[in-house]
């Protein structure tokens, strides 16, 4: 197990309503630095809503979020980004018709000639740095000069993760269903990539339906049910059956 530090992210009493529906009913969760926490729960349990609140996409109605002990206001995705909180969504936010390096550097290109919008990017440097990043993450892409639309799902996921990593260590990386819709071999590679991020000390929240994957990569598992965090358990101390029972509500367990 990875050595775990002081709390990096603490959310307390997060509430979120959509009309008459209380999507989040006072959610509290604490994540330590360097820790990988899996967020599981049935559809509609509030996983995505919680992630969107932390990511600023749909800010919470009330409650507090603290980063490294300091209370922060996350009102937009830009706020979250500025604080070093980054979400990798299931739909892989890649520009399909651009190549790998263009995607890795999108919006953050090194320049050969600085002219505002009409600056000329240094493509040679981008290609070299991209190759180095892919190498370091052990991602194999035979032809990185082709549009990413031509890549497999796993390669695309890897490029999306590579892009995030390349821009420097994030305080908190949130992966939304990182293994959904991937083939067996691709799942293996993406999980290996997540593990290597964990070994590098990256703090992560992983939202997943797949308990097998959750057990492979997480330090702790937070189970959500009906807009609340039902239980938080150490991955090594429970079985999948325990988690399933928590998800469906067989056990009304307290926070461990």
């Amino acid at each position, binding site marked *: 197990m990875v050595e775990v530090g002081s709390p990096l992210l603490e959310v307390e009493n997060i509430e979120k309503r959509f009309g008459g529906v209380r999507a989040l009913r006072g959610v509290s969760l604490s994540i330590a630095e360097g820790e990988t926490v899996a967020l599981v729960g049935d559809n509609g349990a509030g996983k995505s809503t919680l992630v969107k609140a932390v990511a600023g996409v749909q800010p919470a109605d009330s409650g507090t979020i603290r980063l490294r002990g300091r209370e922060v206001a996350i009102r937009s*995705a830009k706020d979250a980004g500025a604080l070093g909180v980054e979400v990798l969504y299931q*739909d892989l*936010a*890649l*520009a*399909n*018709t*651009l190549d790998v390096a*263009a*995607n890795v550097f*999108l*919006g*953050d*290109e090194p*320049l050969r000639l600085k*002219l505002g*919008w*009409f*600056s*000329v*990017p240094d493509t040679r440097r981008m290609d070299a740095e991209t190759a180095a990043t892919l190498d370091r993450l052990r991602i194999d892409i*035979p*032809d990185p000069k*082709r*549009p990413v*639309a*031509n890549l*497999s*799902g796993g390669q*695309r996921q890897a490029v999306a993760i590579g892009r995030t990593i390349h821009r420097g260590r994030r305080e908190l990386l949130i992966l939304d269903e990182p293994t959904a*819709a*991937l*083939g067996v071999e*691709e799942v293996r590679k993406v999980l290996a990539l997540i593990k290597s991020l964990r070994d590098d000390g990256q703090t992560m929240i992983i939202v997943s339906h797949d308990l097998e994957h959750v057990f492979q990569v997480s330090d702790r598992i937070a189970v959500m049910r009906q807009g609340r965090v039902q239980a938080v358990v150490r991955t090594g101390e429970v079985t999948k059956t325990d988690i399933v029972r928590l998800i469906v509500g067989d056990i009304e367990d307290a926070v461990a």
Partner: protein
Amino acid sequence: MNDPASPARNRIHGAGGAFERALGLPFFNVAVAIVILYAVFTAITGETFNTVNNQITIMRAAAVFLILGVGQTFAMTTGGIDISTGSMIGVVGAIVGSGLELGWMDPIYAIPSAILVGAVLGAFNGFNITVLGVPPLLATLGTFVAYRGFTQYYMGVNLVTGLPDVVVAVGRATVLGLPISVIVALAIAALGWFVLNRTLYGRYITAIGSNPSAAEATRINVKAITASTYVIQGALAGVAALVLMGRLDSASAAMGEGVELHVIAAVVLGGTYLFGGRSTMIGTLLGVYLIGMLENGLIQTGAGFFVQRIILGLLIIAAVALQLQQRRSGPG
């Protein structure tokens, strides 16, 4: 995503020879069409088509379409479209033309003021599309009608004539046998190629057209960049208006009517995706030439204006249908 055919496709492309690489070029179809049509018109007209003079005539007629095609390519790359180009030309002609005729402004301001008026008209499109969120097709359909209405209201049946030499030169003068309008158009196309393929701007409009939320998630200012493509298109409509005014030595309420069809057809035929994310300036250049050649050849073979319209309209449909077909069968 887990398409079992994709590794094979990689292999084909990766190991492909020159011919396969040529097949993959977005403007491959239009290049083939040009070669075939060129041969057909040469055969039918018995060589009057295939002369230097006639080729210059084609280019002179197509210069306006190329100037506008550059802006249209940018707008289309973001997933947008501008169908108000012809109407913007009308407004520029009316304001700048009458300003010159009535002596409101010195001829030296003719060129900058045409570009400025065009840019303002384009900025209005950009505002409606990005700030108000009106879909590009409808936003520019609105100004297509409104700008033309303004021109007709303002000009009535009057004709602006006796334009200053500088404007007439833009439309008529030649350098080493090449019309200045053609040189200007080619220079704009070259600049457009550079911007599209070598600058951040080209990358960003491609990213916006490819996946707006991906672009939004970066530091790219999606709204400002998207709006700017319409400003550029407007400024280029100003340049195109100068060329048309100069060529005719006049401006009327009908100036620029119908050019938008030629421009959109040329850009789409050239291989730029109507849905954004993929574009080619070389394709636009070839598409413009194809349209110019088609019109010229049709006139020479005796087909009238109405037949040309029928063919032009059907060509747009065919080009889009072909793109949809390719999109379904291939990636990107």
